[in-house]
Each structure stands twice: as structure tokens, then as C-alpha cells.
């Protein structure tokens, strides 16, 4: 339940605005007791859907922990959101606007591409950024100011390849989106891992599609002809239901698998029955309440989702958003300072219990995570299947 005392939190309704974010204008005056955290997320554009869910997690976390105490002084945490529209060109100015408005830490972004683009801005300004679900290795590489709370694509690809092999798959087809680093990257990592496990020639088809494409029948018809055991199709929320439905309509019975993006209620909603049996890896499972943080988070966030008229299925990215916010707060407290550089240093040594597991950062700034959750869609719901841990290369 909402433990927030901030104004405006209770209202919001379907506006999706139930955050404690006060307008920048009032906040600026008494900067003394306000610390700003930037939310660098796509809320519109191609990845707007996923980005928004990540923002929900962050807003909720802010509701839960609206203040942070530094050196005995209580600071109010103010979220500054900047929509990067899933667009690299816009990402630069969006990132810049966060820096300009004085954010000390940045959270985000959904979609690695924009994170990579903005990374330079953050490191130039020496403001630490904490990625939530950006799984591309490039995000943190060579950037001392970028951290992230999720695992990486090479890991995820390997996890799914292992899972496929465990399920007895001998052949696989891969569908990726052209010009999309997440999709192409994950597809590639999967391929490498799967070929290692199942031998040369086990990947029987590699198909690509264009951004905004909505018709997958042609590539699916090709795949159907190859009759693979599994189809691995890491892609965006928007394309997922199309691929699933069109595959089933063409009579393809192979097992469909994908990465974290597919863990999204809208996919089930849109793909309906066809989605049954789809498997994916993700960061979080709402059924897993073994950890204290998660046990508290799950009911509270469900309540929150309900208050903003969203499905009560917790998307993993929301959990990551929540964790990223926690990391920021904890780092500020640990740093004992509101200075960005100090916060960065504090992040480096940070270790805490997040809702997606224990989080600490390695040299690159990546979370030391060696476990992924495999989920399967069953009866119109994401069913937790098992956790898989692999030694990431």
C-alpha cells in the first residue's frame, strides 16, 4: 500500500501520474532540501510501452522512499522525467535537459541504444547513471559513470540457449529486428551459445525484419519449411504478438522463445491463445517472495498498478526500475553527500538487497547477476518455470 505522504500521489488515476514528482519550478527554489533524480526513459515512440512500465517502478519507488537522509539532513527526492522518445537524436537533448535541471543521478533507459547515446553526456557531466533493463554490453563499457541493475545480453542469450537445449531442442530458428541492437545482439548471443550446445548447423534459419514491419508471414513461412524445434525471436513488445499470432496462424508448432522484453501483459492480451507456451527469460518473478525486498514490493506495487488502471501483472522492468531507484538512494546515503562524483564512487562499492535479487556492481558497472528467471505463458499468465544460472562469458 502507498506509504507516501507526497501531494498528488493519491490522485493520478489513469493519467499515470501518481508520482511524487513536483514541478521543477517549485522545487528549484529551496534546493537545499531537494535532491533531483533524473528519469531518462522513452515514454513515447517505439519503446514507449516498455519505458513507461519502467517509469511506473521508479515512480512507485519514489512514493515508497520519498526522502533520503544525507549527513543528518533530510532531502526530498524529486524525480525529473525526460522522455527520450526511443530516438537517439532526441536522447542527447533529453539527457542534456536532465543534466541541466541539476539531476544528481539518472535512472534509465529502457532500450540500450538511447542509453549508449546518452552515456557520453552523463560521463562528460560526471553524473552517474543507473540502467534498469538496458542489457546491451555497450552501455557500461568504457563508461565509468554508467551502472545497471540487470544482467547482460550475452548472459541472457546463453541462458535461453541452455534452456532450449535442456528442453530437448535440436534445431532453432532466430528472428531478429534489423537495425535494433537489442534484438540483433541477443539473437547473435543465442546463436553462438546454441551452436556450441547443439552443434554446427543447428540454427536452421536466421531471419530479419525491418523496424515497423507488421507482416511476418513471409519469414515465418520460410521458418515453417525448416521446421525448427524452437524459434528464438527477441523483439519489441509491439512486434511480439504479431510474430506469435502469425506463426500460429501459419500452423507453426515450434516452441517460441524470447528475451526479457516479452514479459509484458500486453503480449498475452494481444496474442491471446496463441501465446500459450511461449518461453522467455526475465529478471524477476512475482511469485518468488523468498527475498525480503520482493515480498514487500509485490503487494504494494500491485496496489499501485491498480490505482493507475494497469494490469496487475508486475513487469520485470518495473521491478528493475524500482531497484535502480533503490540503488540511487542507497548510494546517496552511502556517499553521505549529494555530490554526483561522490555518489558514483559510492555506487561502485554498493551492495544491497533489491527486489530482483542481491545487487552489487562489478568493475564495468554491471550488476553481478548470475541468475535469470525462465517463464512460460500458461493459461494467459506468465508462469514461473525455473531459475537458470550460467557462467556468463
Amino acid at each position, binding site marked *: 500500500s502507498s506509504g507516501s505522504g507526497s*501531494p*498528488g500521489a493519491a*490522485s*493520478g488515476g489513469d*493519467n*499515470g*501520474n501518481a*508520482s511524487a*514528482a*513536483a*514541478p*521543477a*519550478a*517549485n522545487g528549484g527554489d529551496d534546493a537545499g532540501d531537494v535532491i533531483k533524480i533524473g528519469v531518462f526513459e522513452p*515514454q*513515447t515512440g517505439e519503446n514507449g510501452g516498455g519505458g*513507461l512500465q519502467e517509469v511506473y517502478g521508479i515512480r512507485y519507488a519514489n512514493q515508497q522512499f520519498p526522502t533520503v537522509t544525507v549527513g543528518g539532513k533530510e532531502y526530498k527526492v524529486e524525480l*525529473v*522525467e*525526460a*522522455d527520450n*522518445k526511443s*530516438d*537517439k*537524436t*532526441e*536522447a*542527447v*537533448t*533529453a539527457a*542534456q*535537459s536532465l*543534466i*541541466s535541471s541539476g539531476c544528481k543521478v539518472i535512472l534509465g533507459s529502457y532500450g540500450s*541504444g538511447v542509453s*549508449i*547515446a546518452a*552515456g*557520453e553526456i552523463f560521463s*562528460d*557531466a560526471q553524473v552517474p547513471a543507473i540502467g534498469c533493463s538496458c542489457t546491451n*554490453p*555497450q552501455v557500461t*563499457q*568504457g563508461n565509468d559513470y554508467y551502472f545497471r541493475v540487470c544482467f547482460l545480453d550475452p548472459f541472457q542469450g546463453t541462458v535461453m540457449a541452455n534452456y532450449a537445449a535442456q528442453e530437448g531442442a535440436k534445431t532453432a530458428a532466430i528472428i*531478429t*529486428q*534489423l*537495425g*535494433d*541492437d537489442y*534484438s*540483433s*545482439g541477443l539473437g*547473435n548471443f543465442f546463436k553462438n551459445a546454441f551452436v556450441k550446445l547443439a552443434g554446427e548447423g543447428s540454427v536452421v534459419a536466421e531471419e*530479419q525484419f525491418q*523496424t515497423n514491419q507488421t507482416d511476418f508471414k513471409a519469414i515465418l513461412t520460410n521458418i515453417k519449411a525448416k521446421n525448427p524445434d524452437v524459434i528464438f525471436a527477441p523483439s519489441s513488445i509491439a512486434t511480439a504478438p504479431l510474430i506469435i499470432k502469425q506463426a500460429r496462424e501459419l500452423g507453426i508448432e515450434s516452441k517460441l522463445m524470447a528475451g526479457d522484453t516479452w514479459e509484458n501483459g500486453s503480449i498475452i492480451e494481444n496474442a491471446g491463445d496463441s501465446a500459450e507456451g511461449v518461453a522467455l527469460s526475465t529478471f524477476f518473478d512475482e511469485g518468488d517472495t523468498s527475498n525480503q525486498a520482493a515480498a514487500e514490493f509485490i503487494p504494494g506495487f500491485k496496489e499501485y498498478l491498480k490505482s493507475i488502471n494497469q494490469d496487475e501483472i508486475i513487469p520485470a522492468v518495473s521491478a528493475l526500475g524500482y531497484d535502480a531507484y533503490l540503488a540511487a538512494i542507497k548510494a546517496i546515503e552511502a556517499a553521505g553527500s549529494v555530490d554526483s562524483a561522490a555518489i558514483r564512487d559510492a555506487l561502485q562499492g554498493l551492495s544491497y538487497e533489491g527486489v530482483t535479487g542481491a545487487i552489487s556492481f562489478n568493475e564495468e558497472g554491471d550488476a553481478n547477476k548470475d541468475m535469470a528467471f525462465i517463464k512460460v505463458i500458461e493459461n494467459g499468465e506468465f508462469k514461473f518455470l525455473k531459475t537458470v544460472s550460467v557462467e556468463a562469458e
Partner: protein
Amino acid sequence: MKKSTKYVCSLAVAVIAVALLFALDANKTGAGMLISILQKSAILAVVAVSMNLLNGFTGLFSLGQAGFMSIGAYITAILTIPVKNLDGVYYMSGIAPWLRALKEGMEASPSWLQAIYPFLAMIVGALVAAGFAALIGIPVLRLKSDYLAIATLGFSEIIRAIFSSPQMDQITNGSYGLNKVPTFPSVFGLPSLFTPFIVAAVSIALLVLLINSTYGRAFKAIREDEIAAEAMGINLFRHKEWSFVISSFFTAIAGGLLAMFMRSIEAKTFSITLTYDILLIVVIGGLGSVTGSVLSAFIVTASKEWWLRFFDQPLIIGGWQVPLFRTGFRMVIFSLLLMIVVLFYRQGLMGNKEFTWDGLARFFRKLGKKPAQAKGGAEG
């Protein structure tokens, strides 16, 4: 207005602009947003003026800007990414050995040469774009109006498809895009913040000189009436080709600047939307007005990405949350403003006129007169 007054005014503006840049440089963090917006506007202004050369002055309706920008951007990026970052950038398929060798060779050269490499890279990019334009111009420039537009748009999309294709992975890094592009180099020992403005100013100045030259007049003649222009002894094909090639050259220069500005590029950046955005800038500024293009590059960029941003934030006045204010509202407002400008300023902000001091003086005189007239009316 006297000529000397005009020079003084122009000089004053130039001095103020330079002083402003120094001030911005001194306060980089505080003015980060302003700097970003100004730099982006300067870059877009170059493309807008180049597009204006083609669409506004030569009357060739071309929608291939994004493609030519991508050529400039990719070549600049590939040539300037430091060797030490290559493995990180080309993490998936590696870089082509010859390219690596070339880049290693470049880094081994004397430092004065290295200082100008970024500019050379931009020029190489621009030359490649110009060459490509010359090539496709031969068949395409025979087409008229909308057919030309769609053909150039098609070429732009083809370029994009090539850049993002898996076959080009070792050169353009295909789907993964390029990052770790160094930011603007410095020129003449000035802070690097100045660079995009200097390059933009030089590019635009050259374009203006061209437009006002005898060739520029020939371009205008073609725009007005091709048959009459031909009857005036103007070789249609040669002049159209020049206009197309030169426009592409500067468009690619802007592409190179954009790569340095964004520091990471991918093929998606150069989709048709980018061309539409530029067309928007050109038309809002006024088709056939260089100063209009420059002005509107700034106004459009700033309002879209900066001034209107508060619409995306929830607004709470005295505890009451103003409805409508939430993410996405900014773009709705932006599109509405756009529509208003288009519907009420059909000719764009400047029409086909250029900014002149006389024009400004006239404008203020008119402003001053209006209330006076109203008074006069009341008396009478």
C-alpha cells in the same frame, strides 16, 4: 539605413555571438541545455539551408536528405572512432582488417595531422555523398516534382538499408550502430564548443555566396520555369546536377557534425522522419529564405526539445494537479503549434525574404506606428 550603420550592426551581432559562446563555454554545466540546443540547431540549420538550396532555390523537390546525412555521419564516425575503442564498438562481428589497418595508420601519423583528421573525415564523407549524388542525379533528376521526391526518398532508404545490413557489419557495425565517436575537435585553439558553429557558419556562408552568384540565379530560373530557363541557354541537367551535388555535400557535412554531436549513431537515426523534420524547418522558416531556415532550425529544435518539455511533467498548482499535463503532451502541443504556424503563416516565418537590417527597422517602425494610427483613428 546607411551602409555603415548596417556594418556596425552586423559586427555588433557577430561580437555578441562570439562573446555569448565564450560565456557558454565558461559555464558549460549550467548552460548545457542551451549549448546542446544551439549546437543541434546549427547542425540542422546547415541541412536546412542545403535543402533550401535544392527545394527552395532550384525547385527540385528532394527528400533524400537523411540518406546523405547518414553517409557523412557514418564516414565521419568510422574514421574518427579511436583505435582503442574499436573492439568495444565492433563487439559483435569485429572490424574489417583493412579498416583497422587504415585507422592504425592514421593514429600513427604526426599530431598536427591528427588534429585535422576529424575535419578531413567530414570532408571525405561529404565528398563521398557528393559523388553518390552525382551518380544518382544522372537518372533521377529527369523526374519531376513528386516523382523526384519519392525517388530520392527511395535512395535515402536504400542507403539506410545498406548501412544497417548484416553484410556491412564489419564496416558500419550493421544493426548495432557506432558509438564512442569523439566529440567536436577544436579549431584554431578555440574551445571545442565553437566547432559546430564555425563549421555551420562557413558552410552556410558558402551556400549563401552560391545562391547569390550567377549560378544561384540560374537555379532560381530553373525553379521558376524550366522551359524558359532552357530557352535562356541554361543547361538544365548540368545545373540541377550541381545543385543536387552541392546540397548533398553540405548535407553530409551536417551529418558528420551530427555524428560528433550525438557521439553514437545508428541507421535508424536517418530514417524518413529526419527528412520530414528538416523539411518542416525549411518550410516554417520560409522556402527560399536562408535566414528563415536558420531561424526556424533554432525555434523548432528549441521548442520541440526544450521549451515545451514542461508539458511532459505533471503540473501542480497549489496542490491541484492540472489535467492533461503528462508525457506525450509536449508533442501534442508541438504538433498543434506547428499546425498553427502552417495555417497562419503560409509562407513560413520569413516568406522568401531574407533578414536585413532595413527589414528589421521597418518591422519596428510598423510596430511603433500601429498604436499611433489607432490613436489617430480615435481622434478622427
